C-alpha cells in the first residue's frame, strides 16, 4: 500500500482491526474528535462513531479501569495514555487489577485489552513527556509489554496485541513516529509477540536494544563498522515475555554484549539481560556485559535531554569498551 511512517502504521492497524472486529474500540484523551495528539487514531471517530472511538474524561486510572470493565464484558478495548509521564495513575489499575484478573479468577476471566503509550524522550517536550519506564512494566507479572521500532513491526505487533488473549502494553517510540517510512502491507498481518528481530549480523559483539534506541544502536553499529567491528544487533520488540534465547545464542557466538536503553540504569532491563546472559552463556562470555543507559535521575528538559539519552557516540564508546576488556 505504499510507505508509511510508524504512527501511520499504528493508525492503519487500528483501522484494519476495527473494520474486521466490531468489538474493537479505542478510548482515551483526545483520541476521538482530535484523532489523538499524535494522530494515531485519526479518522476512527468519523468512520466508527464516538462510541467506538471515544473521547474520555481526563483520567488515566479511569481509562484503563474502564478498559478492563469493557474487556470483561466482551469488548476489545485499545486504550491510549497520552504520554508516558501520565502512566503512574494508570499503574494502580494495571498492577492491582488488569494484571491479576486471570490469576484472581482462576482463569475464569481475562483482560484482552491493549494500552498504547507514546514513550521516551528526544522531542524537546515539557516535563513528564519523555519517560522510559519499561522496567516497572516488565516487573509486573500478568501483562505483556511490546516495543515496536519500525512501521512494519508496529502494525503487525499491534494487530497481534489486539488479538492477544491477555493484556498488552504497547509502547510507541514517539521520537521516531515520523522518522522512518517503509513498505507496510494494506492487508492485516501479525508479527508474533515474544520474538526478537535480528537487525544486522556480526561476529564481534552482540548489541541489544528496543524501541527508539534501535535506531541509535544502528547508527553506532555503522560507526563501529568503520573501525572494522561487526555487530550482531537485536531489536527485542517484546520485553515481556522476552526472547532471551535470541541474545543468549548470539552471545554464545560473539562472547560480548552491549545493552542499550533510555531508561535509568539501576534495575533497568540491562541488568536483567546481563543476568540472563551470565546464567546461560557464562562460559562463552569474554567481557562483562556493558550497559549504555539513561542516568539514575529525572529526565532533564529540552536543553539537557541529549545528554541523558544514549547517543551513537556513547554507544560506540561502550562497544570499544567491551572489546578492549
Amino acid at each position: 500500500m505504499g510507505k508509511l511512517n510508524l504512527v501511520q502504521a499504528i493508525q492503519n492497524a487500528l483501522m484494519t482491526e476495527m473494520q474486521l472486529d466490531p468489538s474493537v474500540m479505542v478510548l482515551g484523551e483526545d483520541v476521538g474528535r482530535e484523532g489523538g495528539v499524535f494522530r494515531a487514531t485519526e479518522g476512527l471517530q468519523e468512520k466508527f462513531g464516538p462510541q467506538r472511538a471515544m473521547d474520555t474524561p481526563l483520567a488515566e486510572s479511569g481509562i484503563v479501569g474502564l478498559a478492563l470493565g469493557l474487556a470483561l464484558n466482551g469488548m476489545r478495548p485499545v486504550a491510549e495514555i497520552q504520554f508516558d509521564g501520565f502512566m503512574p495513575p494508570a499503574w494502580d489499575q494495571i498492577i492491582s487489577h488488569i494484571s491479576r484478573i486471570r490469576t484472581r479468577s482462576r482463569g475464569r476471566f481475562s483482560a484482552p485489552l491493549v494500552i498504547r503509550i507514546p514513550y521516551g524522550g528526544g522531542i524537546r517536550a515539557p516535563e513528564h513527556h519523555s519517560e522510559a519506564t519499561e522496567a516497572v512494566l516488565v516487573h509486573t507479572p500478568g501483562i505483556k509489554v511490546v516495543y515496536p521500532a519500525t512501521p512494519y513491526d508496529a502494525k503487525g505487533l499491534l494487530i497481534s496485541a489486539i488479538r492477544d488473549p491477555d493484556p498488552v502494553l504497547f509502547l510507541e517510540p514517539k521520537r521516531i513516529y515520523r522518522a522512518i517510512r517503509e513498505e507496510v502491507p494494506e492487508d492485516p498481518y501479525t508479527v508474533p509477540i515474544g520474538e526478537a528481530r535480528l537487525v544486522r549480523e556480526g561476529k564481534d559483539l552482540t548489541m541489544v536494544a528496543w524501541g527508539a534506541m534501535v535506531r541509535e544502536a544502528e547508527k553506532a553499529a555503522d560507526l563501529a563498522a568503520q573501525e572494522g567491528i561487526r555487530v550482531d544487533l537485536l531489536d527485542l520488540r517484546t520485553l515481556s515475555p522476552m526472547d532471551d534465547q535470541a541474545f543468549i545464542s548470539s552471545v554464545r557466538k560473539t562472547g560480548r554484549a552491549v545493552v542499550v536503553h533510555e531508561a535509568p540504569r539501576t534495575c533497568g532491563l540491562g541488568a536483567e539481560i546481563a543476568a540472563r546472559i551470565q546464567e546461560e552463556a557464562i562460559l562463552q562470555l569474554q567481557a562483562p556485559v556493558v550497559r549504555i543507559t539513561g542516568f539514575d535521575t529525572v529526565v532533564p528538559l529540552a536543553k539537557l535531554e541529549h545528554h541523558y539519552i544514549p547517543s551513537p557516540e556513547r554507544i560506540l564508546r561502550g562497544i570499544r569498551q567491551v572489546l578492549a576488556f
Partner: protein
Amino acid sequence: MKGFFDPSILEEVEMLRILGPEGTMEEELRPPELTDEKMQELYREMVFLRLADQRALNLQRQGRMGTYAPFMGQEAAQVGSAAALGEGDWMFPSFREGAAMYMRGVPMEAIFAYWMGNEAGQRFPDEVKVMPISIPVGTHPLHAVGFALAAKIKREPICTIAYFGDGATSKGDFHEAMNMAGVLKAPTIFFCQNNQYAISVPRTLQTASRSIAQKALAYGFGGIQVDGNDLAAVYAATKTARQRALSGQGATLIEAVTYRLGPHTTADDPTRYRTQEEVEAWLPLDPLVRVRKYLEKCCMWDQEMEESVYAFAQEKLNRVVQQAEAFPEPTPEEIFIYTLEKMPQRLELQMKDYLAFLKELEG
C-alpha cells in the same frame, strides 16, 4: 421517591458577574479595595501579560522557545485571583498560569526561560510564594491541601490556592483533594479555570454536572461560579474565599468560566475541534476590553494612555526576552546534582563517567 436527590435541584446555578462586557460595574457587589486606581493598575498588568503571551508564541514560532501553553483570554481569571491573595499565601499552579505566577512575583524572564527548556527558570526567588508548575493535570491540589493543613497546625494566618482546568476535575486526585479539604477544613482555595476545553475535549464530555462549582457541595464546603472574564467578580470571589479560609471556615471551590482564545499549546491545532464562530462569539467577552471600557467611562483611561502602556510593555518584554535568553546554559552536572541532597556514590560515578566521555569527545 423519598430521599432521592434529583440533580435538577442544581439546574439554576447563578454566575457572579460584577463588571459586564460593556464596562458597567455593579457597584453594590464591588469589593471596596478594588478602587478605580487598583483597576487601572491591574489593567496595565493585563496588557503586559497579553503581550507577554503573544511574545512567547512568537518566540516559539521562531524556534527560540519550546512548547508553550498560552493563557490569552484568561487574564482576568488569573490576575483577579492572584491580586486578591494575601502576602503570605502560597500558590500551586499548573502549566497555564504564567499570568497568575507573574502577579505573585515570579519574574517573567524565569517563566520564559522555563519554556525555553531551561530548568533554572523553575527556581523562583526565595521570597516568591509559588510552587514549581505541575504538568500532571489535577494532581497538585492535594499538595495545596497538605500545605494549608500544615499552616493550620502551625497557626499561620495564610491560605493556599491551587489552579487547574476543567479537565483536571475528572482526575481522581482532584476528588481526593476536595474530599480531604472538606474533612480537614483546610484553608485552601480550589481555583478552576473552566476554559471550556481540555485540549480537544469539551467541558460537556468532561463532567455531567451542570457546573463545576456545584461539586464543592458534595464535599461539604462552598462553591461559586464566577464570570472568569470579569476581573471584579474573580477578585471578589477569591477575596471571600480567602476570608473564609482564614476565619476557619475551610475550603472554597471557585469556577471561573472563561475561554482559551489561543491553542492548547503551540503543538495544537484548535481548528480540528472548534469552529471560528465559537471563538468569535467569545471575543466581545475579552477580559481586557471590559476593564478598558470601564476605565474609559470613569475618565481614567484614553487612547494616549493605551498607546503608552502598550509601548512600555513591549519595551519591558524586549528586556524580558534578553534576560531569558541570557540565563546561563545549564551544564550536564545539573542533570545529577538535584536528585538527592547528597549524591549517592553510584550516581556520582555515572556523572564522572559521563563528564569524562564529554572530554573524550572534545579531544
